């Protein structure tokens, strides 16, 4: 893959391996700005723990958006 050294980033191996897919430049830029701390947290979990965390977060979001929480 040809690229300038300025563009070198963690996403470039993906761009090399994800063949025949046009990626929006904004998406590529956003990938460079992803906060890795949350990724590191998710990766510290086992696959089943990740599933459970996702379902629990979804339930919490649903409660929040349905306004079922009490504000006193």
């Amino acid at each position, binding site marked *: 893959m040809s690229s300038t050294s300025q563009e070198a980033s963690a*996403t470039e191996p*993906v761009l090399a391996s994800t063949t025949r897919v046009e990626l929006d430049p904004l998406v590529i830029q956003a990938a460079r700005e992803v906060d890795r701390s949350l990724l590191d*947290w998710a990766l510290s979990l086992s*696959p*089943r723990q*990740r599933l459970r*965390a996702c379902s629990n977060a*979804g339930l919490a979001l649903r409660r929040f958006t349905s306004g079922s929480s009490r504000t006193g």
Partner: protein
Amino acid sequence: MAHPAQADLDALIQSLLGSGIEFIVVGGAAAVLHGAPITTQDLDIVHRRTNENVQKLADLLAKLDATFRGRDLRPSAELLAGRGQLNLSTSLGPLDPMCVLHDGRGYEELLPHTTVLTDGPSAIRVLDLETLIAVKAAAGRARDKLVLPILLALQGGSNRDR
């Protein structure tokens, strides 16, 4: 009794595995399994469409009281053996068995592009990260685009760590 709107992803996958069903996790749950800290309401799977596997899936769906979402209609083995996507409501939340992906690839075609994640005795077959990125990028929907940066960052991280 009303079915939950949020899928219990772990329980659904354990039910599928426990029933001996061959399937590939795709969609948002695949992203979650790869470590994307996102939420998804449903479980998308591509199941193998052999007669035996379709029957096992149909039996499990009956056990989970599956109906098409918003309709009092139950899925049939014939539909599971076809080429469509079934958007189902179950007692463990939304489950979408897909006979083929939007690009027409079914279980057999996707199999070389999967990886198996193990967690204790559970072995979960999931679309590999590279293919998931390609599928999400090709889908072009806003919600797919939103998760792409995270998947790319995950892929970049895993390549960098090798």
